[in-house]
Structure formats: C-alpha cells, structure tokens
C-alpha cells in the first residue's frame, strides 16, 4: 500500500493545495489499490479513465490556485446515485445497463468542488438489506476478519461497498444512503465513520428512490473531520427536491474539535435491549465516561416508543418502496421481458428483474396499502411514527443536546450466516431506524473492538439540523478511543 492511499481526506486536500503531490498521483495510487482489491467486490464499476481525466483537470486548477474544497480528492460513489454517462444500477438486474443522461445533485456538487470519481460502489439491491448480500453483483467482503479466522464477513449494508472501499483504503471517502441504518451500520461494521444527516439536508434528486420519507445521503470516511468536510459539499438546498431544506450549510469542519463542556448527553434506557452482548454494553458505558471526562453532563432519558420503531418502519418503508418501484415496468429503461400483452410483460419483467428481498418488500408494501388494510397497517404506523418523533422532541425540549447509543447490536457477521429468516436480518437496524423515522441526524463513530478483534461503533443522535454537535461530540469519542487501526491488506 502506498502512503497516498493512507492519507486522510483532510491531509490529501492540504497536500494537494501545498503541491506536495499531484491529483494524478493520488488517483493512480487508488486506481492501483482498487485493481488489487477486486476480491472484496466493493466496486461494481471502475472508472479509471474518468478518474485520470478529472484528476488532470484538478491539477490544472490547482496550478492556477483555483482549486475547490475537494480539489483532486478521489471518491467512490454508491451505485444508487445517478452519474451522467456512467452506468447506474442500484445493484438490481431490473436497471440492467441503465446509463443516466443526468447527474444526481449530490454528486454534481462533489464534482463542482473538485472531487474525482473512481467508480461505482456495491450495495444491497435498491438499498434493501443490512449485509450487502442482496446485490445482483454478489456480496461484498469486509476487509476485517475475526482473529484467527479466514471466514469472509459482511461489511453491513446497504452501503456495504462504500464501507469496505473506505476501510480498505480504496478511496479517501465515499457516498452512501441511509433509509434505516444503511450508512451507520456498515460504518460500525468496518471501523469507519458514517453520518446520516437530518432529513432534508441533502437533495434526493437523482438518487434511486427506496422510501422517500426516510432516504438521506451521507458520507463514509476514516475520520470525523473527513466526514465533516465531505458532508458540507454534499449538503444544500436544491429546487429539484421539494423536501430539501433551504437553510444555510454550516462549516461542519469548524465544529470538529469544539468543546462539549456543559453539553447534555442523553442515555436512553430503552436501548438496553435483551441479549445485548456484554462488550457492547461495556463500550456504551465507556463512551459515556469519555464524554463525561470531556466535560459533558450525562443524563438518563426515556424514549418509550423505541421498540415500535422497527415494526413501524417495516410498514412505512415497504409501502413507499412498492410505490417508488412501480416505475420499473420494462417501458422506459432497464430490463424488459416480452409477454403476450402489456400486463404480462410488466409481470414477467418484474419477476425476472427483482431479487427475493425486493420482491418480498414490494409485496408487503402492496398489501399494507391495499383497500381494507390501509387503516390497520399504514395509518397506524404513521401515527406510531408521530409518537416516536414526539419522544425525541420531549427529550430535546428538556435540554438534551445529543443522545449516545450503540450503533449496532453486534459486530460484523459472516457471509451467509443470517438471512434464512428475514426478521433476523431486520433486527440489525434496531438502534439506527428510530433516527430515520424521526428525520434526525445520526453519526456512527468507531469506538473499540470486540473479543474477536472486530470493530464496534457508537452512535450519536442529534437535534434536527444540528450535525455540528454530532461532529464535535464524535471527535471526542474518536480522540478518546484512538484512531481505528484498519486491517492490513490480505486481499
């Protein structure tokens, strides 16, 4: 591994500005690392030519002193973001060889700021999954392995390719999306930092839709500071997404290193779930001690509707998915299977194009929205969602600045270990899904290792549009825990 791939994003940015190395050199180092890491299956499409072209343009701008905030920084992009002229599939057979004729707002802002595209990253099909095993391109391997074992582990999901690519030093940062935990859970499983910002902070325009009232884009990086840098470029109002919010984007990086003295951090008692591994319980208490040592005040809080968040999510998300995925009908793009009439063509196309998890969710969503069942399921779930959000509002009204929880109920598991029972897989998102249901920001920060030497993360949940407190508090955890030492390449 060359040193250019082990730089943090901030170090690379500063080194490029200081002309210590060229964007072309950083791009080449990452292109070589990606070629060597194909066994991890993190990238579903490599774009080395585009990367070199963009890096050369960055070098020209840097030479003139005109570099943007991410000038020359090579990134990986989750295959859920439409990239103009670059195949975008959501890792579903039904999108086939879809080549967008437009660019998602989030990625267009990254290119505006000078970033370089290395390629498209693997994910669960339509972001439906918690292990990256539902991708039509096959599973991604976690660069981490249990001590003394070669068993391949999942990187988490749905943004598994993003998490692995960042942890394996294949890019300096990556984009992800998070509907129920799809950034924070894989970040925790790979020892990386991932933040899902407040709903409305990033534009959803040009991002393949899963559940529109829950989906948000966010970054994966190796440090809290890097996440702050990347999120700033990704954020901002977009007239093309009516749910993106028109408020100023703060300089998130300036919040990193800010004192948390006197800030009130809530510890929700409902997150102490049955059968939680002792080491996660210990890590959680350790995290609270670190924050206390940095001057924060720790208070026990109650979020009484926590246990209902996951079942409510599995009504709301499939319902919205069944509606969003109606567009894949074999007419305008993607796969088409011929049929004897138009209905037969739709049914055959969708049977052939959707994998089992997507099909299951579309069927559930169709059922809970169907005549006679809407009130019992969908309406009830949306009322419960109001109560989940109210729980958070009441806690914040009492002066709590942020909430500390574990990020996941376990460390990374083996490929093929879970999935026979869909419910077992769904329970992975138990600590993250409440945040999407309430539209709040949440960050996962690596905080320690389990008994097998696998990384574990802590999650911080913030007030709406207060990502700055998450960056300040996350940096305290990062400093106290020590920067996560990522695995040396075995691939």
């Amino acid at each position, binding site marked *: 591994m060359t040193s250019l791939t082990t730089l943090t994003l901030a170090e690379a940015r500063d080194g490029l500005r200081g002309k210590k190395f060229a964007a072309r050199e950083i791009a080449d180092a990452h292109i070589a690392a990606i070629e060597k890491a194909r066994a991890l299956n993190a990238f579903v499409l490599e774009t080395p030519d585009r990367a070199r072209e963009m890096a050369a343009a960055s070098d020209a701008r840097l030479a003139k002193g005109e570099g943007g905030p991410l000038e020359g920084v090579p990134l990986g992009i989750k295959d859920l973001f439409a990239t103009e002229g670059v195949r975008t599939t959501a890792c579903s057979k039904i999108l086939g060889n879809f080549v967008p004729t437009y660019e998602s707002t989030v990625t267009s802002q990254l290119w505006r700021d000078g970033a370089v595209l290395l390629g498209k990253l693997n994910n669960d099909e339509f972001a439906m999954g918690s292990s990256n095993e539902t991708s039509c391109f096959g599973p991604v391997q976690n660069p981490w392995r249990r001590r003394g074992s070669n068993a391949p582990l999942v990187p988490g999901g749905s943004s598994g390719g993003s998490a692995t690519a960042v942890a394996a030093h294949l890019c300096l940062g990556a984009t992800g999306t998070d509907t129920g935990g799809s950034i924070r859970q894989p970040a925790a499983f790979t020892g990386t930092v991932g933040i899902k910002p407040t709903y409305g902070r990033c534009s959803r325009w040009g991002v393949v839709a899963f559940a529109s009232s829950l989906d948000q884009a966010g970054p994966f990086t190796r440090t809290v500071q890097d996440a702050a840098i990347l999120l700033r470029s990704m954020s901002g109002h977009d007239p093309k997404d009516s749910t993106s919010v028109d408020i100023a984007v703060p300089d998130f990086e300036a919040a990193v290193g800010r004192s948390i003295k006197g800030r009130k951090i809530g510890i929700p008692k409902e997150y102490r779930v049955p059968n939680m591994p002792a080491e996660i319980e210990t890590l959680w208490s350790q995290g609270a001690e670190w924050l206390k040592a940095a001057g924060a005040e720790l208070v026990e809080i109650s979020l009484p509707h926590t246990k209902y968040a996951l079942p409510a999510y599995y*009504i709301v998300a499939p319902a919205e998915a069944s509606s969003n995925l109606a567009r894949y009908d074999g007419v305008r793009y993607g796969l088409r299977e011929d049929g004897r009439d138009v209905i037969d063509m739709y049914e055959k196309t969708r049977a052939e194009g959707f994998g089992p998890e997507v*099909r*299951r969710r579309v*069927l559930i969503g169709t059922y809970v929205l169907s005549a006679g069942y809407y009130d019992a399921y969908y309406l009830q779930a949306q009322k419960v969602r109001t109560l989940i959000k109210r729980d958070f509002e009441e806690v914040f009204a009492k002066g709590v600045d942020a909430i500390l929880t574990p990020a996941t109920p376990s460390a990374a598991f083996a490929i093929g270990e879970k999935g026979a029972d869909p419910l077992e897989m769904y329970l992975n998102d138990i600590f993250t899904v409440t945040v999407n249901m309430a539209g709040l920001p949440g960050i996962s920060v690596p905080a320690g290792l389990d008994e097998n030497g696998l990384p574990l993360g802590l999650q911080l949940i913030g007030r709406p549009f207060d990502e700055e407190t998450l960056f300040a508090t996350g940096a305290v955890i990062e400093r106290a825990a020590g920067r996560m030492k990522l695995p040396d390449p075995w691939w």
Partner: protein
Amino acid sequence: MSVDDATVRRIAHLARIAVKDDEIAHLRGEINGILGWIEQLGEVNVEGVEPMTSVTPVKLKMREDKVTDGGYPERVLANAPNTDRGFFLVPKVVE
C-alpha cells in the same frame, strides 16, 4: 391478520410481479411471519394522534408554474428497451 394463498396471488398481481405456483407457499410463510411481527403496533394507544405527513416542520416551497426543463426526446428515450420515431413501444393495449 394473516394471508392465504389466494391473497398472495392477488397481492402479486396488484404488484405486477409474476409468481410461480411453487413459490406461493414459501411467500405466504414469509409474509405471515413479517405481518405477525408488525401486529404488535396494534397495542400502541394512538387515540388523538395525527399520522405523520412530514418529518421536518418545513412548509413546501412554491415555484413558478413554468416549464424549466425538457426538449431532448433522444435523452429521454436513450435507455428505453424499445422505441420508434420518438415514442416508447409497448405491446398492443387496445384491440
């Protein structure tokens, strides 16, 4: 509430997904497993609670009612499986 085979077929048709006969029993089991689990929401007292319609307390912006994009049919059709003279082609719909 649980679903029977006929309901699984009806949902699949509503969702426009062809399902083979030998898949029905398996799908019924999975769907009933998930429905049984989400049933616990019934125990929550939601009297007087409004269903959520927007997660952020933001008023939707209005924009001018005018065309701001378009005029490039070739880009719109670029990914279509079957087109002819600027149209999407589908199997015959009207006899």
